[in-house]
């Protein structure tokens, strides 16, 4: 199945894209999507311990299961304010 990956700030710079479409297996979790991404962009791998994630613009755990067409966002540590 296909998911849309949204990337922000430094993660976007590392990927060179704000949005990617990727195939992941049925039953994939947010973590599966992250592993797919980290394999493609190894410079992102160290972020695993500090990212948070969202599915369809709601905060989600790495263990959350994703579905066909979902928007999966990865958020590097935030710095608003």
């Amino acid at each position, binding site marked *: 199945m296909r998911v849309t990956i949204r990337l922000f*700030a430094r993660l976007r710079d590392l990927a060179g894209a704000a949005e990617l479409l990727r195939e992941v297996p049925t039953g994939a979790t947010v973590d599966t999507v992250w592993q797919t991404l980290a394999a493609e962009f190894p410079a992102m791998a160290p972020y695993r311990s500090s990212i948070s994630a*969202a599915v369809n*613009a709601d*905060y989600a755990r790495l263990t959350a299961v994703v579905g066909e067409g979902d928007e999966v*966002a990865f958020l590097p540590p*935030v710095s*608003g*304010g």
Partner: protein
Amino acid sequence: MSDALLSISPEPVDVARVMRLATQADGDPPGRHGAVATFLGTVRGEHLGRRVLFLEYEAYEPLALKAFRIVAEEISGHWPSARLALHHRVGRLELGEVSVVIAAASPHRAEAFAACRYAIERVKQIAPIWKREVFDGGEAWIEGATADPSDAAAKQTAYERACG
């Protein structure tokens, strides 16, 4: 600027408007509140010994608005009489410009101050907003907190700062 209590846009912040929105939230009649505490975040020209030239803010807007709503709900839980209005800017901001304005209105000042402080602490902890710092000699994304709205320790830290 929209009339929404919680908003994000590239437009300059209208502080008076955000204050008014806080006092009129929930259809509150004039005179319900005796205090409005405001916080303005402004672009500082120094960071980690670097001379900052300007900042670029970006947000994952739909989630950032949800984060603001989470903060507003937490405030309602801690200080039921307080009303929150918040506007965060995105895009390029020059030194001294206002990046965020928070107004907390309440019948009495203690709740207004506490709610306002709590709001900025929580925004910094959980809102998916990032700043890229362009400084004399380079540029860098600033990375602060891992955003987790359910992190009880982070909530407790914000609450203690608000009441400290």
